[in-house]
């Protein structure tokens, strides 16, 4: 090719550039570029080989972990069964929705939209927001459970809009008798951060999984828990489940079989009615605890769903402390219910039961006069009469003869001040005062008037209802009956004979006379032929006489009413105790004991009495609780403060309150106790409706004692 401009171009003497030179330059440079391209090709091939051969293992694992999602299936919780195998706590299949706070993108917005979808109440939405802001990121927060399938499906299809929302099919805990078993069984809830730190089991932070928080649910957590199942699913990057790969079923937790008689427990809880108190019933032949009712209570079903602010405020503000288990954490001066026990101590110390003391209505001890509850006096009183008439002067006199120590020892032998080996989260065990105790605790010498106060179950003496029930069963049988709560523990104490038979029979007869004879609790007679109940009334003074007379005035100053009992009196089968807080006297307690025992022997008759009472009270305990909640919520609405963030805070509070209540009587321990009239002749619980079923129960029962009983109204 001719290059016409070449000559005119810049002169480069060193090198003449020609077309052929350019052509060879092109060929050389083409080879260079081709080589570079070939090099890149080889590099790519090597890289490909490295990734797919050398690192294949690693990337295959990563691909699998992308693809496969492993989710734990929370195990179904073991059931809690009563003695006949009926569930006190079971599981109900349901649809539920939880939130994982750390996966939420817009927490407020998500909760609001969920609330609208599920039509939740504003208070509930506020509770959820509160919990989400307080929860640690990984802790699931329950939005709702027990959903209808339509709601569940509505959320499931909108999942891509709701990151952090976990809808699932699961099981929720169900307590068929609701508030009747609240204190006994406890409730379940999502594990707190502290619990997860203590037991870093991934199951605890699985949405929908709940652990026992209180009562037997907490105590038997490990038995009830079971083994979680696992589900391997193939998921897309967006989290959509493509298919199930493999599912391992969960293993349900072990059932716990209690000695509790479910229907009796429910009956007793309902029978307490408007009062605040507890009922314990034991089987004298085995030590089985048949009933441990404490009312008022909370609904463990709603607690297990996560208690709301309104409901918590209602329970907290109630002066009858529905959050406290009164069976185990209520401590009360036992009052005159200790008299059969003191009688046992007297007989063991060699006092002849037929020896009489003349009761003139009071006894001077030192420079103080201690009155009998019957100011007119009982006249000549032997041990039996001292029991069935509850004569205080007899015990003042006799106790001074033997001193405090034998009585304190006997109290302990009968169960007072003792902690029983029961599977409960905690129990208070009260006080049996004696000289050494007083010196240690208060730094003061034991005085005679301390003995005098203690013999009538006042002063420093404190016991819980379960101890009173154990005392009743030990006196009734003469054996060292140990209470048991689960059917797999062996009955204990039946080889130990505490009292000789003739002493036992003597006291049985005297206690039968309390009810069936000329005693203080004529209204406690069972409306069942051939079954005679024996018992002992007690009225415990709470505050100084200068503050209240114990029968009227502010509720919290009224006397406690107590009653210990066993039946049938000659061949004891059941024993128990009823304690009514601030019931105004024993008259609030023994009608309950009577009805509970009636129910045990004749359920139909018992229920008949209860139905009439409940008609006056406005429904069953659960119905009244729900009505109260509705009224409270309507009144306070959203204005209530938030509930405690941790369940532990609830327990600490309750524990503290219980301890404070237990020390209440310390203030009057050094005072002269003016014993309250033992019998409540009308049998009408103060503030309660007139029990219509009561009147016919009184008269037909024949008094087994020789002496015809003066009418109970005279309260001798």
């Amino acid at each position: 090719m001719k290059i016409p401009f070449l000559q005119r171009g810049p002169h480069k003497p060193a090198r003449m550039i020609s077309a052929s030179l350019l052509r060879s330059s092109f060929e050389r440079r083409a080879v260079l570029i081709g080589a570079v391209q070939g090099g890149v090709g080889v590099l790519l091939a090597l890289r490909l080989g490295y990734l797919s051969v050398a690192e294949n293992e690693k990337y295959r694992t990563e691909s699998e972990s992308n693809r496969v999602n492993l989710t734990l299936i929370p195990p179904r919780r073991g059931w809690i069964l009563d003695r006949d195998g009926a569930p006190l706590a079971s599981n109900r299949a349901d649809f539920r929705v939880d939130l994982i706070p750390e996966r939420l993108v817009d927490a407020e917005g998500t909760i609001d939209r969920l609330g609208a979808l599920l039509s939740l109440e504003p208070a509930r939405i506020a509770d959820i927001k509160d919990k989400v802001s307080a929860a640690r990121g990984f802790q699931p927060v329950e939005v709702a459970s027990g959903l209808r399938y339509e709601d569940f499906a509505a959320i499931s299809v909108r999942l891509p809009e709701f990151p952090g929302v976990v809808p699932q099919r699961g099981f929720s805990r169900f307590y068929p008798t609701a508030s009747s078993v609240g204190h006994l069984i406890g409730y379940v809830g999502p594990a707190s951060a502290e619990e997860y730190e203590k037991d870093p089991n991934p199951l605890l932070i699985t949405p929908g999984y709940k652990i026992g928080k209180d009562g037997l649910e907490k105590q038997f957590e490990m038995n009830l828990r079971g083994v979680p199942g696992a589900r391997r699913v193939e998921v897309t990057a967006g989290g959509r489940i493509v298919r199930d790969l493999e599912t391992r079923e969960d293993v349900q937790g072990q059932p716990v079989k209690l000695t509790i008689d479910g229907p009796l427990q429910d009956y007793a809880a309902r029978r307490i009615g408007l009062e605040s108190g507890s009922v314990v019933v034991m089987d004298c032949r085995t030590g089985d605890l048949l009933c441990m009712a404490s009312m008022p209570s909370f609904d463990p079903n709603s607690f297990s769903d996560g208690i709301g602010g309104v409901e918590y405020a209602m329970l907290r503000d109630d002066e009858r402390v529905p959050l406290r288990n009164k069976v185990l954490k209520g401590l009360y001066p036992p009052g005159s219910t200790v008299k059969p026990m003191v009688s046992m101590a007297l007989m063991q110390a060699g006092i002849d039961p037929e020896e009489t003391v003349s009761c003139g209505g009071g006894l001077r001890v030192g420079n103080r006069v201690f009155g009998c509850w019957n100011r007119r006096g009982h006249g000549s009183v032997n041990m039996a009469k001292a029991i069935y008439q509850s004569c205080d002067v007899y015990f003042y006199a006799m106790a001074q003869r033997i001193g405090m120590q034998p009585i304190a020892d006997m109290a302990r032998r009968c169960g007072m001040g003792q902690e029983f080996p029961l599977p409960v989260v905690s129990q208070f065990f009260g006080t049996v005062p004696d000289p050494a105790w007083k010196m240690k605790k208060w730094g003061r010498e034991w005085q005679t008037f301390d003995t005098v106060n203690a013999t009538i179950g006042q002063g420093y003496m404190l016991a819980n209802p379960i101890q009173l029930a154990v005392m009743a069963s030990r006196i009734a049988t003469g054996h060292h009956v140990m209470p048991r709560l689960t059917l797999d523990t062996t009955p204990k104490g039946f080889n130990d004979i505490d009292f000789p038979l003739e002493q036992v029979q003597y006291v049985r007869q005297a206690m039968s006379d309390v009810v069936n004879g000329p005693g203080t609790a004529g209204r406690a007679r069972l409306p069942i032929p051939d079954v005679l109940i024996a018992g002992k009334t007690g009225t415990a003074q709470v505050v100084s006489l200068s503050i209240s007379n114990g029968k009227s005035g502010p509720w919290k100053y009224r006397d406690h009413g107590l009653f210990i009992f066993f039946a049938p009196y000659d061949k004891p089968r059941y024993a128990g105790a009823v304690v009514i807080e601030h019931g105004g006297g024993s008259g609030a307690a023994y009608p309950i004991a009577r009805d509970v025992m009636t129910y045990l022997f004749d359920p139909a008759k018992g229920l008949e009495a209860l139905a009439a009472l409940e008609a006056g009270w406005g429904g069953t305990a659960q119905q009244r609780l729900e009505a109260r909640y509705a009224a409270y919520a309507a009144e306070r609405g959203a204005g209530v403060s938030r509930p405690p963030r941790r369940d532990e805070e609830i327990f600490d509070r309750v524990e503290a309150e219980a301890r404070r209540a237990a020390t209440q009587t310390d203030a009057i321990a050094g005072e002269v106790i003016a014993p309250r009239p033992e019998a409540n002749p009308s049998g009408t619980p103060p503030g309660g409706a007139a029990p219509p079923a009561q009147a016919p129960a009184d008269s037909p029962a024949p008094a087994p004692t020789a002496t015809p009983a003066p009418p109970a109204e005279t309260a001798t």
Partner: protein
Amino acid sequence: MSTIVQRSGIIPEPIARQPWEMLIPLVLLTSFGGLVLYSAGGGAMEPFALSHFIRFGVFAVMTAIIASLPRDAVRVLTYPAYLIVLLLLLAVEIVGQVGGGSQRWLEFGPIRIQPSELMKPAVVLAMARFYETLPAGMIGSWRSVLPAGMLIVLPIGLVLLQPDLGTSVAIAFGGVVVMFLAGLPMWWFLSAMGAGIAALPLVYFFALHDYQRARVTTFLDPESDPLGAGYHIAQSKIAIGSGGIFGKGFNNGTQSHLDYLPEPHTDFVFATMAEEWGLMGGLFVLAMYALILKWGWKVANQSHDRFCSLLAAGATATIFFYIAINLLMVMGMAPAKGIPLPWMSHGGSSMMTNMICIGLLMMVNRWNREAPRRGLTV
């Protein structure tokens, strides 16, 4: 130097004279690409595989037309074509300004044209034409580089405004390869390379957009953002690595089917393929590309004149650039950027560009055949 098949008498001459050494790999590659897209579409022709084949058919006709263009017409039309594409790029910029916000394409009824793609072959053509007419003696003077530089810088400037870094680099690459092959002094390139390396930090801190900077940082340290920008490359490596030697089998790729792999049908189609076909599939694809590129260089070397050889080499380099950058990216050796894999990725623009390049190569190949080389005096 003409094809061997010419001598065989069994096959009719018009068919036999076609460059089968390139066409067979090309069709195999496109079919394989269609197969991968069939899997990426969830085991169905729709939405990817069918349109892939249709596009290939349409652009094959276009390629045939380009291949049959006469030599003189191409020489005359080169600069006007370049100018038109440049005006289209300007139009994109104007439309983008008016419409508020950046865009990269123009719409003519149902057809959507991305002028920056057209610019890649247009630059190569214009550069080849320029160096053909530049007297040999002027190589090495400022006149050899300044007009050519303008030919490259103008479109790059417009494409950068869009902003589209990947395409502007691709345009520059094609142009610079032509300049290099045109015989410009070697030390120019070496010093430009040195200056470029020195300027890298400045470019990084002042010229790049945030998202581009993020891509670079992620490339240098993939662990810094495993769920953000680094996620794409990490998932791509998982897909390729988990395929092993023979792959997980057709339609059995989990990374692509379960959406872990981003863009399984466009930028990361190679990863989709490698997951299901393994190392073997990958080597097959590499081999096909090698055959096509080898043919491209053969055409360039067989060319009779400067225009033809520079055009063929530039077109080959443009195709190579796509392949290399895409594969380096999916294997985690280059920052993630939107460059598709020729004949395998789903997408019309890149298919068009690459088919234009193939058309230009076939055109040159035909010229070579029709007018056998007559020594050095072209």
